[in-house]
């Protein structure tokens, strides 16, 4: 406590500093944060709008305010400094801080408001609309949180706190300038396990498995609705705005009563709603009108605007239908967004289901598309290289491949069995040493000598099966536990460059190979090694997802590729994060110039 007092005293002496760009940890919360009070002069404020009491490791109570952003608002910091000067406060712990706190909270704290974006269909453009709004509002100086109550996606990402949330919300949080997206933004995550059963992840932790009937029959009316309500309330306490994303269509009238992803969530958040419709497939006016009119009256009044998205060619011609549309439905059209090509992570398997290849580069990288492929956003940075990624489902698809990627899977054992029966496993074995091969997570586990599943966690029956035998490694699926960590570190090969990544997996591997990376876990700061490498055979394996995002490993791997007798030239490669940042800016620009932002601000309760 004395140590904190000393720090606060230093801060009081120093005065207002704004953002501390020189700090190694900057920005620890959000871009543009005020760093005057890295240590809070109000601690512990015991105000439950800003923090909560936790039970510490030794059973003692600890006031936690790690989610509090209030003290990082410039207006708050400037107010405190001016009050401290006015009152002549010089020491931390001065009782007058309680008065300053009370006044600051009265002036600057208010519960945030929520706005929801629903789509007439899947792939309507909800995610990018929310991402664009997050960036636009962030640029205007607001602190914004993305939210999606229920997400079905195989692309999840580990947060710094060791929980997992969907990739879409991670990107939206980045758009909002947030550095630490967390599971409040995506409290319910459904991860399909088979045809009808999904693993339900609540607040970032595996909760239970449900089929469709039990999910809607038990989970939603039981814990589901209150989980949504509590998390929205949490975000409203900490952020100016909560930008919510719906799931699928809000007008599925056969399951309307059990909805917590669309209008049900809007009701919990008391949010106004924007409907986004993808124009590309045709029928957009009908989809929009039908969606609005099928929603019951008491919820329909929340819908305050329609956005027609992805209009190719001449938007003027499309606009000629708008007056009649507005007359029929009574909701104004607040945006017509032209088609644009943006580099953003793949949202879900729907987007990849129907494509055979991605990218148009010269090199051919075969990524095996198992039936349960997961976290294939790992591949996204490759699409920006001089590479064509071929999704291989048959042994022939690997013919002519310059390199092979074995991506992650929701079920290593089942997908390895599929690889064997499809003849792909033998094909991969035959290409050993001829082309570079990298396995990520489940794909890495497959590269080992043996996979043991004594409890039948992966396969339903107890068994041990041979892997691809590319590494001397044994993986055991010991219990139903999952490792979720977010790490950074460096390569132990090549130029030893920096890497970042995250682990999301069941099973532990015993590896008797040279390690590929040295990594530090972002949560407990443990330093360990990861992965396996045989440089002479061009074999690489790692548990880290997102490993191609940063340049060093991507260029190292690509530089091992020989295409048409020539080595791959990776000198133009860039970090995926920088490219993403540029694309978010461009996306926000496109939306800002084609969307009635005044209408949006009114929905958020900001008067003109």
């Amino acid at each position: 406590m004395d140590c904190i007092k000393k720090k606060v005293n230093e801060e009081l002496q120093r005065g207002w500093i704004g953002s501390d760009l020189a700090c190694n940890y900057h920005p620890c919360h959000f871009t543009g944060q005020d760093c005057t009070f890295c240590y809070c002069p109000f601690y512990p404020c015991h105000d439950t709008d800003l923090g909560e009491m936790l039970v510490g490791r030794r059973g003692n109570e600890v006031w936690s305010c790690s989610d509090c952003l209030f003290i990082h608002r410039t207006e708050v910091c400037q107010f405190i400094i001016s009050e401290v000067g006015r009152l002549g406060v010089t020491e931390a712990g001065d009782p007058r801080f309680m008065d300053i706190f009370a006044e600051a909270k009265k002036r600057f704290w208010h519960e945030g408001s929520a706005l929801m974006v629903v789509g007439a269909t899947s792939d309507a453009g909800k995610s990018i609309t929310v991402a664009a709004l997050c960036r636009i509002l962030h640029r205007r100086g607001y602190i914004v949180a993305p939210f999606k109550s229920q997400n079905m996606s195989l692309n999840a990402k580990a947060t710094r706190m060791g929980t997992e949330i969907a990739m879409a919300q991670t990107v939206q949080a980045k758009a909002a300038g947030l550095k630490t997206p967390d599971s409040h933004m995506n409290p319910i995550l459904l991860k399909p396990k088979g045809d009808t059963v999904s693993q339900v992840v609540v607040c970032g932790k595996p909760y239970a498995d449900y089929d469709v009937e039990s999910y809607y029959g038990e989970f939603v009316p039981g814990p589901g609705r209150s989980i949504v309500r509590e998390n929205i309330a949490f975000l409203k306490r900490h952020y100016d705005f909560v930008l919510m994303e719906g799931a699928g269509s809000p007008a599925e009238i056969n399951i309307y009563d059990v909805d917590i992803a669309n209008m049900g969530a809007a009701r919990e958040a008391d949010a106004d709603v924007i409907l986004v419709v993808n124009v590309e497939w045709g029928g957009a006016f009908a989809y929009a009108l039908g969606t609005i009119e099928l929603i019951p009256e008491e919820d329909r009044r929340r819908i305050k605007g329609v956005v027609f998205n992805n209009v190719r060619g001449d938007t003027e011609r499309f606009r000629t239908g708008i007056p009649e549309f507005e007359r029929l439905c009574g909701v104004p059209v607040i945006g017509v967004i032209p088609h644009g090509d943006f580099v953003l992570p793949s949202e879900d398997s729907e987007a990849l289901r129907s494509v055979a290849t991605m990218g148009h580069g010269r090199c051919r990288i075969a990524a095996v598309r198992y039936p349960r492929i997961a976290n294939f956003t790992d591949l996204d940075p490759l699409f920006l290289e001089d590479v064509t990624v071929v999704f291989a489902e048959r042994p022939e698809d690997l013919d002519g491949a310059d390199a092979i990627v074995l991506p992650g899977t929701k079920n290593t054992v089942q997908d390895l069995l599929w690889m064997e029966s499809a003849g792909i496993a033998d094909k991969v074995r035959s290409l050993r040493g001829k082309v570079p091969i990298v396995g990520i997570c489940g794909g890495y586990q497959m590269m080992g000598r043996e996979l043991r599943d004594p409890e039948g966690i992966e396969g339903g029956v107890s068994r041990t099966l041979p892997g691809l035998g590319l590494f001397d490694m044994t993986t055991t699926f010991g219990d139903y536990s999952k490792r979720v960590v977010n790490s950074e570190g460096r390569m132990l090969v090549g130029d030893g460059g920096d890497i970042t990544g995250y682990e999301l997996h069941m099973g532990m591997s015993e590896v008797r190979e040279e390690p590929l990376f040295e990594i530090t876990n972002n949560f407990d700061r443990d330093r360990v090694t990861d992965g396996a490498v045989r440089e002479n055979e061009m074999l690489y394996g790692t548990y880290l997802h997102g490993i191609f995002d940063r340049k060093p490993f991507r260029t190292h791997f690509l530089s091992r590729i020989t295409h048409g007798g020539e080595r791959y030239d990776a000198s133009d490669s860039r970090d995926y994060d920088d490219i993403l940042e540029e694309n978010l800016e461009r996306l926000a620009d496109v939306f800002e110039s084609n969307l009635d932002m005044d209408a949006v601000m009114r929905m958020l309760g900001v008067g003109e």
Partner: protein
Amino acid sequence: MRILVLGTSSDAGKTVIGAMICRHMARRGLDPVPFKAFNLSLNSYATKDGGEIGMGQTFQAWACGLEPETDMNPVLYKPSGGGRMQMIVGGRPLMDIGNGVEPDREAAVRGIREAYGRLSSAHGCVVCEGSGSPAELNLMSSDLANTGLMRLLGVPAVLVADIERGGAFAAIYGTWRIIPEDVRPLLKGFVINRFRGDASILGDGIRRIEELTGMRCLGVIPYLPLRFPEEDSLSRSEGRLQGEDVRQAFLSNLDELLDAAEAGGFDFRLLEDITDEGQSRRTTTRLTTDE
């Protein structure tokens, strides 16, 4: 007999459902023939009479056991790049349109009327296919293949909605709402296409749409991993296609789809009633004219 298959979006499955109806009618010996008044497509097929028609009607003709002919697709626009399109009427290039040049609508209507007349007098049942969505408010006034055809010839219609992307109920209801009131009574039924899972979950929604619109649900077509000819670039080419003769391979996939629809309780009886209604309506018109 006649029927028009409309879709709530591009790629809703009009062509395949149309082909399935053709196949059913052919099995029942009702002598069907496919017809699509207007087609915007890059994939065309050269007919034996020296013209060209869209791939979709070619496939539907095969489903009927017929050779494709230009009358099945009287007006065809082929994109030729740079916003320009070639307008083909009756299998022959008529003019280049786009970039400010408007199509010759009168020639198109004449082409459609004549081709339809020849097909309906030579065959027992004309299975028409719409184009895109019939509810494009910005294109409604120039429509030829959807509400345009309904108004021109009084053909009863069914609406196909793709449920794979979600929002199918909204799409059906919204399309019905937007279709102008003078032709709306011709919308008799709807089909939900590409459904995965247990269709009983849709029951309440289907009943609600039936109540709201007066249309009847003909059935729910399950998603099957089958490949069919691609009408245009928006189609998804996935699924199985086996055999050396492409035509036979497509037809065997179509038979599989038809069998699945029958097994899933698709109401072919209702379909025939709707098709017949088109017949009686036309008969009535003719009698009136005769008097």
